[in-house]
């Protein structure tokens, strides 16, 4: 069931088009990430859903009701801000009670709901403290508890983990998944961190320059990116540019090498076309039959711990290969190696 529906939503700030024709359907209970670099329109989209910005054109429907003209306090949406926005003059319990108090709920009901929310995020013993006495991760949990305590129709998270260090961030990601599963609330999560989006989401919405470029499950967006931007923004990527060869799925590189794609290429009118091969799909050594291969000049070999990252060059283009540590014997800096991959791992993307 569609819970949140954006129909051709656009937002203009003066001469700047922040969001262009964003259309998106989110199902009830889904965890959807809005992913993109800063200035791509993801936060503006979130602000329009929350009601802090009004769309220039288009409509937003939440739980079957048009909300784009409704003020934020009547939308029944929970939101977690990047800097948490906890009220410094109120205790943790009073912070969480705030949305219930302004709704005029009874004291008993408020108290029970606050206890429940504190238990959900595991901070019962912190109830009497002030926000400044809590660590960043704890403040984050309070903000989450406060956004969930009144059982809103939708939960919005605006880069909530960006201020935390790496270990805490991973811990919070696990925590967020658990809470989402436990509460089942429809959640929109804004982030510029593609690995965060991959880990957390049911679906990812890729934003670039104000437009939605792709909507899909994390693995689908990773394996089958719809645009050059999606290909390069999510994960490491090797993009090979050339022209269409004799077959629709055949790419001819400028040096004449012929490569093959899993499906027909997406040529522009001039015949230019491109392929994406992920670093972990490229292998070193003699290619088996049916594989495509390139000779590379090795620029550097980086030991990443569990694997090697080999950076090589072919025809002036830099390529990255993620190889097992045992491959050290095959490649050293300055040597020439053969890299191969199976055509089914080569995904066509639009040319530049």
């Amino acid at each position, binding site marked *: 069931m569609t819970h949140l529906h954006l129909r051709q939503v656009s937002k203009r700030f003066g001469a700047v088009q922040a969001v262009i024709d964003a259309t998106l359907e989110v199902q009830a209970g889904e965890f959807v990430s809005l992913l993109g670099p800063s200035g791509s329109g993801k936060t503006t989209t979130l602000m329009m859903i*929350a*009601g*802090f910005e009004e769309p220039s054109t288009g409509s937003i429907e939440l739980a079957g009701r048009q909300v784009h003209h409704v*003020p*934020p*306090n*009547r*939308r*029944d*949406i*929970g*939101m977690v*801000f*990047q*800097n948490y*926005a906890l*009220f*410094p*003059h109120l205790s943790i319990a009073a912070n969480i009670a*705030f*949305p219930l*108090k*302004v*709704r005029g709920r009874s004291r008993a009901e408020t108290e029970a709901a606050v206890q429940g929310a504190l238990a959900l995020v595991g901070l019962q013993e912190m109830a009497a403290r*002030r926000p*400044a006495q809590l660590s960043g991760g704890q403040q984050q949990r309070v903000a989450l508890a*406060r*956004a969930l305590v*009144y059982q809103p129709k939708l939960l919005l998270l605006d880069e909530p983990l960006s201020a935390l260090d790496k270990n805490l961030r991973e811990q919070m990601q696990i925590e967020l998944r658990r809470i989402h599963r436990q509460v089942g609330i429809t959640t929109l999560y804004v982030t510029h961190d593609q690995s965060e989006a991959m880990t957390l989401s049911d679906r990812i919405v890729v934003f670039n320059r104000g437009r939605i470029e792709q909507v899909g499950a994390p693995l689908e967006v990773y394996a089958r990116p719809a645009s050059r931007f999606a290909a390069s923004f999510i994960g490491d990527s090797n993009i090979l540019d050339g022209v269409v060869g004799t077959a629709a799925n055949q790419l001819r590189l400028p040096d004449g090498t012929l490569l093959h794609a899993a499906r027909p290429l997406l040529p522009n009118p001039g015949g230019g076309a491109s392929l994406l091969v992920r670093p972990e799909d490229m292998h070193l050594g003699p290619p088996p039959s049916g594989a495509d291969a390139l000779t590379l000049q090795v620029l550097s070999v980086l030991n990443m711990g569990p694997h090697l990252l080999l950076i090589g060059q072919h025809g002036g283009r830099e390529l990255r290969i993620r190889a097992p540590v045992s491959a050290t014997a095959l490649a050293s800096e300055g040597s020439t190696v053969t890299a191969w991959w199976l055509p089914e791992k080569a995904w066509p993307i639009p040319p530049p």
Partner: protein
Amino acid sequence: MRRGVPTWLLLLPAVAYLLLVFGVPLGNTFWMSISEPTLGLQNFASILTDPLYARVYLRTVLVAATVTLLCLGLGYPLAHYMARRSGVVAALLLGACGLCFWISYLVRTYAWTVILGNRGPVTALARWLGVEPPPVLLFTTTASLIAMTHILLPYMVLTLYVVLARIDANLIRAAHGMGASHWQSFSRVVLPLSLPAVVSGCLLVFIFCVGFYVTPTLLGSPRDMMISSLIANEIETLLDFGSASALAMVLLAAVLVLLTVYDRLVGIDRILR
């Protein structure tokens, strides 16, 4: 390890200067309050028993409280507007407030004697509107209230502005997003967070006001004397240095009590952060 000049030596010139020009006269005033005309506490005794003095102190406190409330009432909305809007209007208002500090309050007091005087624009406006005879404003308590509010308003506005501008806009958004109406996000978030500034601003204006001399003397009614005028009167016409000194010491003590209260409240404020 040998350090160069001890840090406290840096304070010495300023401390010496203050002791000389402030500490010595203050000590002298205190001495006069208990030694003129004879050694003893009779000056304080007469201040505390004579209803005239009590009336003047009370009037001073009432005038100062009125000015403080007027400054708060006029200043809070202005400071709130300037803090929440970023734009040409807010910048101009802030500049105008800062500019007030550059014009001596003496000049502004004289300007009010012209504006409120017999041939001033207020009288002319009243005549033009057919109010005959026009209201007498100059040399009334109303005039000194208007002028003191005008002179002290920037202090209130800037004190409030500094704190209001520092309140994270996301807090207000968060409150609004969680279901608070505009009034609720003001009364439950902005107002409590700005309360320390309200207390500071009010005490600042109030303390300034109880000791105000020039403006109430030049604009106010001679019958509604404030304490500073009374002190001047004791010295200039009655040559009663003992009573004047004792009156000044009581005023000083009252201000010190207020400053202690201020310190306590600012202490509470510090715990909040």
